[in-house]
Structures are given as structure tokens and as C-alpha cells.
């Protein structure tokens, strides 16, 4: 459960999960929504995978991520999003998110 809290405490990781709520996406498609370098995003994916919140499927060179949230984890995500957990500490990352896309 610690891993889940750690994963959900970061606004960028929460944004990734929100994007995956709509449909499974490739790493490239997700990266298109952020201004980060790929290694930074890969680190976020690793945390999400470790917490068992996303599932990755590799087909050739493309990695597709899909959501793997339990009902409780989904509720925790909504709660963290509403309260804005980690928004102050991760404000820089949050600003980098391009919501317009």
C-alpha cells in the first residue's frame, strides 16, 4: 500500500493515470502530453508499474500502457486529485503538464 501512496502522491503520475482512464496509450502518446525528457517519464512509469497501477504491453518497439486500478485505488486517486496531494512540492512538474492536448 506504501507503493500506491507513493505513486499517487505525485501530480505527474496522477496525470498519467487520468490520461489512461480514457484509453490505453503508448509511451510516446503519453509523452506528448508532457514537456519532460523521456528518462523522467520512464522513471514515473517505473513507479506506477511497481505499485501495480499500470500494465505495460510491449509490441515490437512500442510499449502500450493501460490502467490497472482497483476500486479503492481509483477512489484514492480521485481523493488525491481533489485534495491536490503533492501539488505544492511537485508544482513545477504540474505546471509542465500541457492540459490543452
Amino acid at each position, binding site marked *: 500500500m506504501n507503493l500506491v501512496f507513493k505513486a499517487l502522491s505525485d501530480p505527474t503520475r496522477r496525470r498519467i493515470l487520468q490520461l489512461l482512464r480514457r*484509453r*490505453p496509450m503508448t509511451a510516446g502518446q503519453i509523452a506528448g502530453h508532457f514537456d519532460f525528457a523521456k528518462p523522467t517519464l520512464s522513471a514515473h512509469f517505473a513507479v506506477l508499474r511497481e505499485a*501495480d497501477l499500470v*500494465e505495460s504491453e510491449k509490441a515490437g518497439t512500442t510499449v502500450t500502457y*493501460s*490502467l*490497472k*486500478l*482497483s*476500486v*479503492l485505488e*481509483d477512489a484514492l486517486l480521485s481523493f488525491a486529485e481533489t485534495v491536490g496531494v503533492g501539488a505544492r512540492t511537485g508544482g513545477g512538474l504540474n505546471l509542465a503538464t500541457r492540459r490543452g492536448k
Partner: protein
Amino acid sequence: MIDLRTTRTAASMILVMLVAALWRTITWSDGSMPMAHSGVLLLLYVLPASSASLVACPYRNRRAADDTKTRPWHKWGRFLAISYCGGMLLMQGVVVLASLGLDLPVDLAAIARALAVVLAIASLLAINQMPKLPWLESRFSPGGELGPIYGSRYTRLVSRILVVFQTAVVACNVAAPQTAGWHSARYILLAAALLVAWSIAWRWHLGRKWRLEQLTMR
């Protein structure tokens, strides 16, 4: 998706429940059961029927996939089927005892309510994990296939609503006064029936959306 071994175990429990229900029906004709408890007779058949539907629906309901996708389903199905059927078997025992009208020093309605709470908690644990399972298309699929996008979305929404329903069942059983007896059971059954109807309608809607998307993509 439930494996054959779990299905056999659950089926034997359901068989015991049916035998108990039949036995009670036969002995009921002696007039030993007061008419006020006639709803109990119905409950004796509703319990094995609900267990059977829970086991029969997921058994081989999902289309075969590779082992990595079916293994989590089997593990999940085993937990749900055994805990649900075991709990229902105990509940059936309590209902049979209550129907005999014996002068027992224990409050059977309170025991039944406690069992309902335990069952609901076990179901809650299983439903909570449902969206984590890989999406596999159902053999019985009203409204057609949902695809990986709408399939996962459907599972997520249904699980959320089921969690709310089960939490309400727990709250209802915990908060109900001692005098309430079996009164809440009919409301729970009605709500469950409505939930099934709603989930079929919602599935139909999503299936249509998925088909339309596929057509536009072509």
C-alpha cells in the same frame, strides 16, 4: 472465469443447499412451519440459486486467452466462488434452523445478519480487485463485444457501483434493529435485480458505441 476444480467444489456446496431446501419443503407440508414464515421457504431456494448464478455465470464465461491472462481470473474466481458459496451454505443452515421453529437460546436473525456482513465484505474484497483483471470478452455478451477500451471502462464502473451496493448491504445489516428480522432481504434482492438490469443496459450502450467506433475506423 473459474477453473473446473473450484466449480466442482462450489457445485457440491450448492447441491447440499438444494437437498436441505427440498427436505424442508417436504417436511413443511406437515404444517410444522408457521404461515408467517412462508417467505423463508422462498429464501431456501433463492440462496442456492444466487450461488449457482454466481458460479455458473463466470465459469468459462470469458473467452479463452493465453495463460498469463487467465491465471489472475482463476485465482480471483476461486476466492469469490468458495467464499460466497461457503457463506451461503452457512446462511442456508441458519435459515433451515429458523424454519424449524425450535426454541433456541440464540437469535438466528442476528446470526444471519452477521453472516450477510461477512459475505458482503468477502464480495467487497473480490469486487475491489475486479478492475485489475485483464479484460477478456464474455461468451454471453448482450450488446456485442466491448473491446479493450470500453470493456475496461465497463468493468471499472460496474465494480464501483457494486462496491457502493455491498457497502449499503453491510450498513443495512449492521444498522438494522434486532426486530427487523428478514425484512431487509427482500429490498436487497430487489436492488440486486435492478443492478443486474442496469448493468445489461449499460453494456448494451457501450457495445453499440464500440461497434460504431469500429465502423468509423473502417
